[in-house]
């Protein structure tokens, strides 16, 4: 492998290094004292529009999500509250991670062919590709809950069943 060497022509001032150190120290010290001043002002309720840091204090404060962001799945309902899903197995077939497991049953309404008896998603396997949402002909599965935290202490806890998926609602993305 060829090694590319970049030759820099340093001026004398850069070569003695100590002035460059002082310039660097001035930059970092300016950030320090500016942020210190802003934080102290915040304690007294002043200068609220200035931010003391560029980071988000995560559990209390979230960054705004993109509306297209794929978050935790949910199953949508019909007008009468029953699941919209018709157990057509489209999502189970298209899923590249094989994380969806559906058992279909016969629906009492002859207009509707089937309904899901079981609908499990193993989030330990899910890769959040969103293909299930794309494949669904009934708009029955969506990934718009805005939830990102679903950790669990066991593998069993990562498997979300029908009732759990139906119980979620959408969170409109904040801008």
């Amino acid at each position, binding site marked *: 492998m060829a090694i590319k060497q970049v030759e820099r022509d340093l001026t004398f001032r850069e070569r003695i290094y*100590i002035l460059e*150190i002082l310039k*660097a*120290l001035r*930059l*970092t*010290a300016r*950030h*320090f004292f500016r*942020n*210190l001043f802003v*934080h102290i002002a915040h304690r007294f309720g002043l200068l609220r529009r200035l931010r*003391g*840091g*560029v*980071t988000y*204090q995560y559990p209390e404060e979230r960054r705004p999500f993109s509306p297209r962001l794929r978050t935790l799945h949910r199953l949508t309902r019909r007008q009468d509250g029953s699941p919209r899903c018709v157990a057509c197995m489209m999502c189970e077939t298209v899923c590249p991670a094989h994380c969806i497991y559906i058992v279909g049953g016969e629906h009492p309404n002859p207009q509707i062919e089937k309904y899901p008896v079981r609908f499990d998603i193993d989030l330990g396997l899910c890769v959040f590709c969103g293909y299930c949402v794309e494949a669904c002909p009934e708009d029955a599965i969506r990934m718009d809950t805005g939830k990102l935290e679903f950790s669990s202490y066991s593998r069993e806890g990562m498997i979300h069943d029908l009732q759990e998926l139906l119980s979620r609602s959408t969170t409109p993305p904040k801008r």
Partner: protein
Amino acid sequence: MEYFIQFSKAFFIFNVVMGFMYILTWLERKQSALMQDRIGANRADILGFRLLGLFHPLADAIKLLTKEDFIPPGGNRLLHTLAPFVAMFFALISFAVIPFGGTYNLGGYEVSLQVLDLNVGLLFVFATMSMGIYGFVLAGWASNNNYALLGSVRAASQMISYEITMGATIIGVLMIYQTLNLQEMVVAQGEYFWGWIPKWGIFLQPLGFVLFSTAAMAETKRVPFDIPEGESEIIGYFVEYSGMKFGMFLATDFIETVLAAALITTLFLGGWQVPFLGAEGFFFSGELWMSLSSVTVMFLQVSAFLLKVSVLCFFMMLVRWTLPRFRWDHLMRLGWTIMLPLSILNILITGLFLLWRS
């Protein structure tokens, strides 16, 4: 009573150093965070009080104490355990000769605020600093790990290189003050040029100040000079350490930072001297003076010393979080081909100056 005074002085300086160490571990996080536009550690709380993350060092100590104390197979059990204690002991014992206050008349007793009044105080500091390297070298040898050994060898060679610069730099200071006693050195810095500029080492030895600060920063083994630790390449001499023994090495780094700051203060920034503050009170030129009691003067001078040390600690943290680390050969080149000739030049200039003056 003698023993009580001696004990309380040692107790005071030990606790001040330990307090500085505690604050510095917190300061390192908060200061670096503010410098990089972050917030920094603020989660650890006691009963909901977060107090700007000041409990994080406490949480760290609890974590380190409850962790497994691992001694690598093939490592020397005794030396592996001994090494962090050696390193920390010699870092702490150096504070014995640092004067943190002048001599005061307190209730009939002449109290000199210096734990050990040695005539060879400066040599004592340098001796203990050199002995401190044994801790790091022992840690490397006893770990049975090539990276640890490499780190300790680097530590030894870096310390030797920079100790020579340090030693050569203080010769200039010695030529001016003509004493090795640190207390006498600080007393000598209480005089003035033309009645108003204090005769601090930084004005008498500006080049020496820069060189000594750089070498002292190298002695602390923190980032611009962190070749022995090298957290981004080899982990260094403490790679095989865990739990509180690892914590002791980290604490040693911070104690050495405080030691370097205290030494720079004592040699170059007038130690506990406050400009225009004598044993009787403030004395400005002519009629302008203010009488103060002995206890007030002591309080002011000890706080001045602590303030100077704090500002220097802040400055060293600033340098640590600003500059990238040196490469090994660059470090050696800086030490041997730039700093050492400059320090010898410093001796030469000081000698010529003294010759011209006499």
